[in-house]
């Protein structure tokens, strides 16, 4: 239990998707103009990461890993399908996004209206695929750890996009050098926020 909580906190602050690995930067830069839309996208990312990472964990554990298929037949113990992981993960993500979209539309039209346009965008958000690939690379030990990592990364991403959106709303009133206006200053602010987030590196978990 302790371990799971540590992974959760660590993936929010220390290994933050945006500030430590630059994942999901495209939508982070494109959708962070207002706080309202960025909250919508952020929640959608938490949602999808929280589902896809555990699903991909199960697939990796029981199908893709070297020798993972030995639960079917001991003869498969030398079988290594890990070269297929990219295509399987991306297929899971694309179909999960479709599925989530349909479920949300059916059960919560209000949520669907606020998330609606962002859900399809998420299929190509690097943070989602990155979450699954990091999960595979770091070899988490249990489903609980994988879920904690997925949710934590999503929440870290939400935190980052909401923070930058709030700053960008304010910065509209300041006098930025013309050549830096818009995207340039956003990059530099993100860098500065990244330096601030590095203070969490000292946390021993």
């Amino acid at each position, binding site marked *: 239990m302790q371990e799971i909580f540590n992974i959760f906190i660590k993936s929010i602050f220390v290994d933050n998707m945006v500030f430590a*690995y*630059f994942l999901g930067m495209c939508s982070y830069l494109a959708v962070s103009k207002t706080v309202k839309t960025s909250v919508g996208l952020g929640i959608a990312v938490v949602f999808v990461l929280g589902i896809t990472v555990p699903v991909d964990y199960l697939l990796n554990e029981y199908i893709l890993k070297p020798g993972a298929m030995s639960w079917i037949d001991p003869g498969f113990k030398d079988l290594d399908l890990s070269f*297929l992981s990219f*295509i399987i*993960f991306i297929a899971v993500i694309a179909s999960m996004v479709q599925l989530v979209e349909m479920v949300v539309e059916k059960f919560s039209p209000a949520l669907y209206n606020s998330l609606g346009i962002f859900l399809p965008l998420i299929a*190509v958000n690097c943070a989602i*695929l990155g979450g699954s690939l990091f999960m595979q690379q770091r070899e988490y030990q249990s489903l609980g750890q994988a879920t904690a990592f997925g949710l934590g990364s999503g929440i870290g991403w939400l935190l980052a996009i909401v923070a930058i959106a709030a700053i960008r709303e304010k910065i509209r009133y300041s006098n930025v050098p013309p050549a830096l206006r818009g995207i340039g200053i956003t990059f530099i602010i993100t860098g500065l926020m990244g330096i601030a987030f590095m203070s969490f590196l000292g946390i021993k978990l």
Partner: protein
Amino acid sequence: MSTEKKEKEPLFSPANVKLLTKPLNLNNPITVQVLGICSALAVTVKLKPALVMTLAVIAVTGISNLVISLLRNGIPPRIRIIVQLVVIATMVILVDQILKAFVYDVSKQLSVFVGLIITNCIIMGRLEAFAMANKPWPALLDGIGNGLGYGLILITVAFFRELFGSGTLFDYRIVPEAFYNFGYENNGLMILPPMALITVGVIIWVQRYYNRELIENK
């Protein structure tokens, strides 16, 4: 279908060359279109991984642009995203296996970022915006051009980060030993992730300063 025969365009007509050169500056995928930053920044600590990443991305953008452009009349619009993803993912698997076979140490350094070429928005963006509507040859050029534009920024960032962060280029020592004896220190901050963002911010600043038409209106 019209029966009139179009005059054949030469392979490197001015319009085609423009496809190759425009992404280098005025339509740069990273600084102007703001695509593909995700995997770009994390590999720029040293020049070598940045160069390998550039070659990988050029190969994937070029070939998948070509393939999608060949298939463009047969892809139903509703499922085009899935088709594009499958084509890209196949290319990336090939690239990943090749890297693992020939440059294993660099492939370890790049870790998940090779896989993340799949969700690199440059590739999806170019497939959507260009390959779906153009002939194979221009599509191939456009793919290579955008890969080059991406690589240009990647290598510039990696150059500054490696020079100031480690005092080396391609792992060869550039800053002479005498400098260190006089108390020169490598700037450790340049190696850390946030400086990649700030370096790109500065590149955008310089680029827009010289190309005023790129400046965004308030």
